[in-house]
C-alpha cells in the first residue's frame, strides 16, 4: 500500500491551507489512498509529518505558496504545486503522486546529510552558540586563507611590493577577510544567544579581542559575554510601554557593548592575549616530538565521533589558530578528518568478504566524501559496527595527524579536502601531506581487515 503525504500552506493561513487539506483528504478517502496532510496555517503547524513517516512515504505533495521546510523531503519524490491546485484538482495530484517512481533506499549521501541535520538540530546551549559562530566565520577563513595562498604564488614576499596583484590579494585575504574572522565569530555567538540585540555587542567585543591580540579565544569569550549580557538586559530591563521601542535599538546595544568592551579591555584582554601568545609561540617553536603528539591527539579527536562535539573541538581549535597565523594544526586536522571515510573505502576493496554488498557500494561514496573532507562519511559504517570501526579510524587518523605535524605541513584554508591541494601554496609540502593521508588510510583499512568479522 503506497502511503502519500502532503503539506499545505498559504500566506494568510485561514482558508486555502485548510481547504486544500480537506480537498485532498476527501479524494483520498474516496479512492482509499492512505494520506496524511500537514497544515501550516495561522494556528501553527498541525498534524506534523514525522521523520519516520517521511522516510516511509511513497511520495509527498507540497501544495503551498509559502515555505514549508522542504529540505525535510530531500531524496523523496515531491509533487510541487500552488496551494489552489490542491483545491481544484486533488484527483490529478494524487494520480501524479502515486505515479512517482519510488525513491531508492536512502543513499549514503542522504544518510550523512540526515545525520548532520539531526546533529545540528540536537545541538544546544554552549555548543550550539559556538557552532553558530564558527559556521558564520568559516567562509571568511576559506576566502581569506586561499587568497593569501594565491598571493604567495607570486613569491613568498611578493605582497610587500605595493601596487602589485600579490599585494592586492594579500590585503583582501589578510587585511580584510582575516580581520573579520574574530569579530564575526564573536558576533554570531552573541547573535545565537540573544538574537539581533546581541549582534552589535558581539561584533564589537570580537573586534576588541582581535585588536588586543586575544585571538579566537578572546573572540569566543567576547561572544558569550556579549550574548549573555544582551540576553539578560533584554529580559531584565522593564520600561514603560511607550519607551519599550528604545530597548532593542538604543539601550541594549549601548549597555551591552559598553559592558562587554570594558571587560575585554580591563579584565579579559590581557590574560587571554598572554595565553594566545604562549600558545602561538609554543606551536611555532614546537619540537617535532611535541608536534607529533599534538597531531596524534588532534587526529584521534577528529575520528573519534566523526563530526560530533569532540571532532568540532579539534576543528575549532585549528581554525581559530589560523587567525594567529599558525597553520600546522589545520593541516593535521583536515588530513585526519579525511582518512576515516577513505580508510573505509579502501577496506571495502581489500577486505571484500568482511563487508555486505550494500556496504561495498557505499564504500565508493565514502571515498568521495573522504577526499572532500567530510568525516561524517564514516558514520554509517561506524554505526553498524562501532566496536571495530571506531578504533580503526581513530588509529588511522591519529597516525595521519602525527605525521602531518611531524612533516611540518601547513594548511591555509579550513576546508576543501583534496581540492585545496590544487591551489598553489594552500598546503606546504604537498607530497608529504599526501603521504600522511595515504598512510593513515592504509592503517585504518588494514586494521579493519584484521578486526572485522566476515559477513
Amino acid at each position, binding site marked *: 500500500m503506497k502511503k502519500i503525504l502532503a503539506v499545505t500552506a498559504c*500566506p*494568510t493561513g*485561514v*482558508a*486555502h491551507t*485548510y*481547504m486544500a*487539506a*480537506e*480537498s485532498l483528504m*476527501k479524494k483520498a478517502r474516496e479512492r482509499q489512498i492512505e494520506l496524511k496532510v500537514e497544515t501550516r*496555517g*495561522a*494556528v501553527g503547524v498541525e498534524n506534523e509529518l514525522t521523520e519516520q513517516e517521511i522516510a516511509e512515504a511513497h511520495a509527498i505533495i507540497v501544495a503551498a*505558496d509559502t515555505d514549508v521546510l522542504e529540505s525535510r523531503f530531500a531524496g523523496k519524490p515531491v509533487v510541487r504545486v*500552488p496551494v*489552489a491546485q490542491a*483545491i*481544484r484538482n486533488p484527483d490529478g495530484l494524487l494520480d501524479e503522486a502515486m505515479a512517482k517512481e519510488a525513491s531508492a533506499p536512502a543513499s549514503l549521501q542522504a544518510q550523512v546529510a540526515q545525520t548532520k541535520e539531526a546533529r545540528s538540530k540536537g545541538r544546544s546551549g554552549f555548543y550550539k552558540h559556538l557552532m553558530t559562530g564558527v559556521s558564520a566565520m568559516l567562509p571568511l577563513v576559506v576566502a581569506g586563507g586561499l587568497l593569501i595562498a594565491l598571493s604567495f604564488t607570486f613569491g613568498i614576499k611578493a605582497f610587500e611590493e605595493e601596487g602589485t596583484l600579490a599585494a592586492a590579494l594579500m590585503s583582501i585575504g589578510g587585511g580584510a577577510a582575516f580581520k573579520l574572522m574574530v569579530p564575526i565569530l564573536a558576533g554570531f555567538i552573541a547573535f545565537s544567544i540573544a538574537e539581533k540585540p546581541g549582534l552589535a555587542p558581539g561584533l564589537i567585543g570580537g573586534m576588541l579581542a582581535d585588536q588586543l591580540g586575544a585571538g579566537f579565544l578572546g573572540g569566543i569569550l567576547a561572544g558569550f559575554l556579549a550574548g549573555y549580557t544582551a540576553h539578560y538586559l533584554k529580559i531584565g530591563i522593564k520600561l514603560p510601554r511607550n519607551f519599550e521601542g528604545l530597548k532593542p535599538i538604543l539601550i541594549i546595544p549601548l549597555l551591552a557593548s559598553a559592558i562587554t568592551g570594558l571587560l575585554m579591555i580591563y579584565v579579559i584582554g590581557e590574560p587571554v592575549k598572554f595565553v594566545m601568545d604562549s600558545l602561538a609561540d609554543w606551536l611555532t617553536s614546537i619540537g617535532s616530538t611535541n608536534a607529533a603528539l599534538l597531531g596524534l591527539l588532534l587526529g584521534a579527536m577528529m575520528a573519534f565521533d566523526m563530526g560530533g562535539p569532540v571532532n568540532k573541538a579539534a576543528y575549532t581549535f585549528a581554525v581559530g589558530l589560523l587567525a594567529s597565523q599558525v597553520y600546522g594544526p589545520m593541516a593535521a586536522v583536515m588530513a585526519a578528518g579525511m582518512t576515516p571515510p577513505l580508510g573505509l573505502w579502501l577496506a571495502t576493496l581489500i577486505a571484500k568478504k568482511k563487508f555486505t554488498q550494500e556496504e561495498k557500494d557505499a564504500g565508493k561514496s565514502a571515498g568521495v566524501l573522504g577526499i572532500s573532507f567530510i568525516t561524517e562519511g564514516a558514520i554509517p559504517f561506524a554505526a553498524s559496527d562501532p566496536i571495530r570501526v571506531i578504533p580503526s579510524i581513530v588509529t588511522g587518523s591519529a597516525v595521519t595527524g602525527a605525521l602531518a605535524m611531524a612533516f611540518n605541513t601547513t594548511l591555509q584554508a579550513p576546508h576543501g579536502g583534496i581540492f585545496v591541494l590544487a591551489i598553489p601554496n594552500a598546503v606546504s609540502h604537498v607530497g608529504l601531506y599526501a603521504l600522511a593521508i595515504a598512510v593513515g588510510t592504509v592503517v585504518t583499512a588494514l586494521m579493519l581487515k584484521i578486526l572485522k568479522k566476515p559477513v
Partner: protein
Amino acid sequence: MNIKELLHEQSILIPLAAASKNEVMEKLVDALVASGAVHDREAYLGALHNREATGSTGIGFRVAIPHGKSSGVTKPALAFAKLAEPIDWDSLDGQPVTGVFMIAVPEAAAGNEHLQILIAISRKLIDDEFRERLLAVEDAATLNDLLGAI
C-alpha cells in the same frame, strides 16, 4: 459553536446586488466596518486586494472567499453575501460566483478559538452538500443554522 460572535447580523447581505467583484468586496467591507470588526477600512481593503493579486480567491464551485490579515481589523470576523446575479471572480474553475465569504483576521491574531472556527468553515466548503445548502440559503437565520451546525 457560537457563530454569531464571528458573523454579525449586519455582515450578512442576502441578497446583494452588485455589478463587479470590487463592488462586492467594498460592500462587504462596509458591512464589517458597520459591525465593528474593522476599524481601518482602507488598510483592510488593501490587504484584501493584495491577496487577490497573488491569485483569485474564487475557489471554484461558485464560491469565493476573499480574505485579508490586517492591522485595520479589530477582531476576527466573517461576512457573507449571496449575490443577486452571479459575478465573474476569475475563479479557478472559470465559473461565476454567487456565494461570497469574506474573512477578516487581525495582524496579531489573539485567541485561536475564532481562527479555529474560520478554519472549520473553510474546510467545510470542500463538502459538496454543505456548499449546495449554503448557496441555497435565503435569509440570515438559515445561514446561522447552517454554520452553527458545523
